[in-house]
């Protein structure tokens, strides 16, 4: 992608719930990149307004779930005059295969971007085959 490309605003998508929540408020889907290297699968999610302590990532039944909560008390006493986006918590989950070593999953948070590294299990890593 060229550096001179002009950025466009992405509309936030809301999470489509399979079950009904018990707390009110809208939850948004974080914008996500997924890429793969020979060693690992990396998931990068954008969650502006979420700090490191408000992230929860879990693996259950081959599903990785990442939830980020914003601190909306910061908006206390502020009266909106003009708005272009809405705020809310973030949540997204992904199905992963058993090729992932689930015990070695790590996560990093920086500037509102969460990077989750899912290392591949030994048997799933590519092997060079010697030609004799």
């Amino acid at each position, binding site marked *: *992608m*060229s*550096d*001179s*490309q*002009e*950025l*466009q*605003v*992405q509309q936030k998508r809301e999470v489509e719930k399979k079950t009904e929540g018990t*707390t*009110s*408020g*809208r939850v948004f889907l974080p*914008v*996500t*990149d*997924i*890429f*793969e*290297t*020979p060693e690992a*699968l*990396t998931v*990068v999610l*954008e*969650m*502006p*307004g*979420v*700090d490191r302590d408000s992230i929860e990532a879990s693996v259950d039944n081959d599903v990785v779930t990442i939830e980020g909560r914003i601190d*909306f*008390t910061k*908006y*206390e*006493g*502020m*009266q*909106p*005059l*003009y*708005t*272009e*986006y*809405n*705020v*809310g*918590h973030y949540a997204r989950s992904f199905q992963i295969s058993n090729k992932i070593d689930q015990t070695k999953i790590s996560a990093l948070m*920086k*500037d*509102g*971007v969460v990077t989750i590294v899912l290392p591949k299990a030994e048997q799933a890593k590519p092997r060079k085959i010697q030609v004799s």
Partner: protein
Amino acid sequence: MFAGFSDPFETLLTLQRALDARIASDWMGRGTGAIGSFPPINMFQKGDDYVAIIELPGIDKNDLEIEAKENTIRICGKKTVAYGEQASVHRRERISGVFDRTLSVPIRIEPDRIMAEYRDGLLALFIPRAEADKPRSIKIS
């Protein structure tokens, strides 16, 4: 305006409704010809002063430039997304590129006293209203 924080369970929804109610309001008039351009801005009033909160996740502070003159504020910079070598991309939703946005606020401000803070992917600009612009109470004699 959302008033109380008495019910913690309703607060977020109340805030979300308040934000929805002011979506692209005409407060900034035609000054922001760039509605819909990047990055998205929310403008708030806090006491006499103003606060702009801008969503800019994953930006290097050194790639961000903010200028202010009279009642105009310019925010420009670039956003890069790197995958590293050897990576094959399965899903690409994050965007990268350059942005340049200028907003004019319809009030007199003190451009020299604007403070900027970048934290957790949010850029907050604290914009003080000019003393000359503040309302004065008039004594009835």
